[in-house]
């Protein structure tokens, strides 16, 4: 199926403003009498706060507000951005400012002052007396007998969620072989270009407060912020300017409640902008997880039992973690067919910064473990790793264990076939690649499936309004939570396609405003193209129907005979009768009807079709230094209809950079004794640079689905999900060494090579 605008590589709606530097981000705003906010952070990972003396800070000239826990509403809240839903387990365990320090960086006090220097000096004048407690920096320490309690949860386990299908014990009895392995993935940080944590809060004379914030979800942030402040939701207005990247870091409230409280207490607008280091210290990142996988297989490679026990390190506050445990189980359940599956998830508090959402939401962690083990199983059974995946993955028409719904479309077979060909699977594996001196080469792959939305775990409301202007152009009013991924462009394409207008004639609200746009749960779960796209398409279809009805009246033809293309309404048979959209709309506004043509939709999408990918990596391992160099990555993705192939490729390429970093260089580390972060800066936290990127080949497989807008599914998160597994499997192919812990650093590789020699 081909379309006029969907599927075209049109220019992004925000391209010009971003490349020219004209885009005005939250941190660029300047309001009259605006103050600068600053947060005082705990230097201890775990400490009781005995007293806080703010008198000196308060008397410093230029200081307009100094707040501590005493000044916060005594309302517990949870920062995770979830709508009330079956899958949202929202344990409320934090205040706007804390009464106990639970990690290095925990917000203990906040000030607002006339400028940054004064605010910083005020922080220095606040005297806090701490009684240091022993910190627990990982799940073993936190769950150990006699470990200090971070909250009141027994053994620091916030939640424990078993999921059982069939009977795994019976499955293990039926197996010819049982594999049991332990995997560990570290904490990694999103590193958005615009540091996470920037908001401007401005109270008004009528008791409302407006917050400009760099967020992924204006409406949900409005609700949580209002709750934390003890206000009715409608008293808070959220405006979302352009956002410099999110990757999950802004999936919920970040510092909006502190900014708002400072503004309300001082009576002035307050800018609260975290530095890069503060955003490392004080905002959410990817969960470290220890996973024990036990898998029973028959000689032919079919699975008789699959079991995962996962210890999820959630950090100091619950936020996402107990809800996040659901998808962690879901990813595992859904990957491979098996009659007997069991997942046991522990959500554990530790004294590190709380963890939350990061592109993939648990899937990169689970896929690394599952796909590493499946490779080992294939090897042990003498099967081609591609074959064992083809044999066991669920396919179109089968039930998707994630949702319990039927899988609408599946392009995995094609992705595997084309990806394998592009990487040279048959000619390069098993030591066939020519080694050069001290270097060894290998090829590996990993498969993944992911969501196009959050159903059925979350309620997925989206809303859109399409109004056709008197000149024939149209506005798309949407709570546009584009954070750089390009969803605003894709949604504009969907609206233009449905309306039959030129792409340039449809204008989306680039800035989201909760006073203007209808309710939408934001950018996450890779949902904007599918869920947002469906709402936009419905609203556009409603407008189109009204437009055609009116044109039919004017042209004196039955409405069924009319269609609209490129801004002109025409009769289907030929060109005999036509009228421009501009003319119809002008008549609508100013003719005898006196109304504007407006289409509205607010709804949940019908489904949540899975997307698939097969990623392949070729690596070269330097046996003298231990360095793993990725030579090439082939990413073959089934995304459904690619609304804008350039954007889709960009999403995959950018995600790969994070995926390779996850595999090889990134790890946010803490000193286990003191709990101090060791690399909360960009010199020592190693994201990859452009120079480190290998050759990348993206392959788009468009297995369109029935329920998606023009057949679209998703791509936002999936680009990094399978990458670490593909690289680890390639390293195994090159060296025969299996790494079950990320990142695969040169020191680890060298030590393993030395051990192998012995």
């Amino acid at each position, binding site marked *: 199926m081909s379309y006029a605008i969907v599927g075209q590589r049109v220019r992004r709606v925000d391209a010009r403003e971003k490349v020219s530097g004209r885009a005005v981000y939250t941190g660029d705003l300047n309001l009259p009498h605006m103050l600068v906010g600053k947060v005082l952070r705990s230097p201890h990972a775990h400490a009781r706060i005995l007293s806080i003396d703010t008198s000196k800070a308060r008397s410093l000239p230029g200081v307009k507000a100094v707040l501590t826990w005493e000044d916060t509403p005594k309302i517990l809240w949870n920062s995770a951005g979830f709508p009330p839903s079956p899958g949202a387990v929202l344990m409320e365990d934090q205040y706007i400012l804390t009464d106990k320090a639970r990690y290095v960086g925990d917000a203990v006090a906040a000030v607002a002052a006339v400028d940054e220097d004064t605010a910083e000096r005020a922080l220095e004048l606040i005297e806090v007396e701490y009684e240091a407690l022993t910190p627990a920096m990982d799940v073993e320490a936190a769950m150990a007998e006699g470990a200090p309690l971070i909250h009141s949860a027994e053994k620091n386990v916030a939640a424990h969620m078993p999921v059982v299908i069939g009977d795994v014990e019976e499955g293990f009895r039926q197996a010819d072989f049982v594999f049991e392995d332990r995997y560990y993935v570290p904490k990694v940080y999103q590193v958005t270009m615009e540091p996470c944590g920037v908001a401007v809060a401005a109270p008004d004379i009528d008791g409302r407060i407006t917050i400009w914030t760099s967020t992924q979800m204006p409406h949900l942030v409005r609700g949580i912020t209002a709750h934390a402040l003890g206000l009715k939701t409608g008293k808070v207005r959220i405006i979302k300017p352009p956002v410099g990247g999110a990757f999950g870091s802004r999936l919920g409230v970040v510092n909006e409640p502190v900014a708002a409280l400072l503004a309300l207490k001082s009576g002035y607008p307050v800018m609260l902008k975290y530095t890069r280091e503060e955003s490392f210290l004080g905002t959410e990142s990817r969960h470290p997880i220890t996973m024990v996988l036990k898998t029973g297989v028959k000689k032919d490679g079919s699975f008789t039992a699959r079991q995962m026990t996962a210890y999820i390190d959630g950090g100091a506050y619950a936020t996402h973690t107990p809800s996040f445990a659901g998808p962690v189980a879901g990813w595992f359940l859904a990957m491979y067919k098996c009659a007997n599956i069991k997942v046991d998830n522990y959500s554990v508090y530790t004294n590190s910064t709380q963890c939350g959402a990061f592109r993939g939401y648990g899937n990169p962690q689970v896929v690394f473990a599952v796909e590493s083990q499946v490779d080992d199983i294939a090897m042990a059974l003498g099967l081609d790793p591609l074959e064992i995946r083809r044999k066991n993955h669920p396919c179109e028409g089968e039930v998707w264990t994630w949702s319990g719904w039927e899988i609408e479309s599946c392009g995995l077979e094609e992705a595997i076939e084309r990806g394998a060909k592009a990487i040279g699977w048959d000619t390069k594996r098993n030591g066939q690649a020519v080694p050069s001196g001290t270097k060894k080469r290998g090829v590996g792959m990993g498969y993944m499936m992911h969501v196009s939305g959050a159903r059925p775990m979350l309620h997925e409301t989206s809303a859109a309004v399409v109004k056709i202007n008197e000149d024939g152009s149209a506005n798309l009013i949407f709570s546009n939570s584009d954070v750089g991924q390009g969803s605003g462009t894709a949604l504009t394409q969907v609206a233009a396609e449905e309306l039959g207008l030129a792409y340039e004639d449809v204008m989306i609200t680039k800035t989201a405003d909760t006073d203007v746009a209808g309710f939408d749960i934001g950018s996450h779960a890779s949902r904007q193209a599918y869920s947002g796209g469906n709402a936009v398409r419905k609203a556009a279809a409603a407008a189109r129907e009204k437009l055609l009805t009116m044109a039919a009246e004017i042209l004196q033809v039955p409405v069924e005979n009319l269609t609209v293309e490129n801004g002109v309404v025409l009769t289907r048979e030929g060109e005999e009768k036509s009228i421009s959209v501009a003319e119809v709309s002008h008549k609508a506004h100013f003719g005898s009807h006196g109304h504007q043509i407006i289409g509205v939709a607010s709804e949940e999408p019908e489904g949540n079709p899975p997307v698939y990918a097969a990623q392949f990596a070729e690596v070269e391992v330097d046996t003298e230094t231990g360095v793993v160099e990725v030579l090439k990555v082939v990413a073959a993705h089934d995304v459904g209809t690619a609304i804008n192939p350039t954007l889709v490729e960009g999403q995959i390429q950018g995600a790969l950079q994070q995926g390779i970093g996850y595999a090889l260089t990134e790890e946010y580390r803490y000193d286990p004794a003191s709990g101090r972060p060791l690399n909360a800066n960009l010199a020592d936290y190693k994201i990859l*640079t452009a120079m480190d990127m290998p050759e990348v080949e993206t392959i788009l497989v468009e297995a369109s689905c029935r329920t998606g807008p023009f057949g679209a599914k998703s791509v936002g998160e999936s680009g990094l999900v399978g990458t670490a597994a593909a690289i680890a499997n390639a390293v195994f192919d090159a060296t025969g060494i299996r790494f079950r812990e990320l990142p695969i650093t040169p020191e680890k590789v060298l030590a393993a090579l030395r051990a192998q020699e012995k």
Partner: protein
Amino acid sequence: MQDFDYWEPDSLAEAVTILSALKGQAFPLAGGTDLLPKLQKGQVSGSGVVNLKHVPELAGLGMERTSLRIGALTTVSSLLANKEVSTYFPALAGAARALGTPQIRNLATVGGNLCNASPAADLAVVLLAYEGRFKLAGPGGARTLAAQDFFIGPGQTALTQGEILTAVEIDIPPLHSRSAFLKHGLRKSHEIALVNAAVQLTLESGTDKIAATRIALGAVAPTPLRVRTAEAVLVGTRGGSAAWDEAAEKVMAAVAPIDDIRSTGAYRRHIAGVLTRRALHEAWGEAYETANHA
């Protein structure tokens, strides 16, 4: 950020006068890529900043007879753009290419890299291998120090109160010489060296016999380290992997690396050996070409 006074002298004499009057309470400022982050984080404290950018005596990059004079204010990107540097001093060009990012290279100066005295500084290890002459000017007049006498410890140099590094001179290497620079890090750009190495080999004309050699390593000791014990085992040999191995052994014995967030000391020591072998191999291949096919 702390408050400080700011000076902008426009001659060397004025700069020296201001700095000595402030008795170590002020910092010279060149590109600021080391100094400003330290000031912002409060890692150094002082009352003044003396901007050297308008001191003409510190500028300039060019040949003076048989040596290259590198003014202290020379930026890393201008080293990269210079023909003499790439022709005669490939290790210096290599180190400049490996330093920081394009934005940093446009600001960072040679003088700043040396006076900051990081044990990992990329240019320091190279200028040690080229036996640079460090030109200093201070209240007591001008003096010249050998590279290896300039570095004293992490962040410490032989500069006395009020003294400024004005330039570094390096001689064009003898005929049939070749140098190489290698840097090891976790990524290819924007990386402080876990270990860096600079070597130079000089062959006897028309032979493959090594007449002289220099080997220096960085990030493996409190200062960039010249390893003469490793140099000694190579002189008079015909090179080759056994010789490189022997030199690498000497290097691994000489270095004293620390454990830190970036690497263990043991790994640094191992990599010091690997880089020595690889740099020698690379330099030897090219030196052999020039000695036998010129």
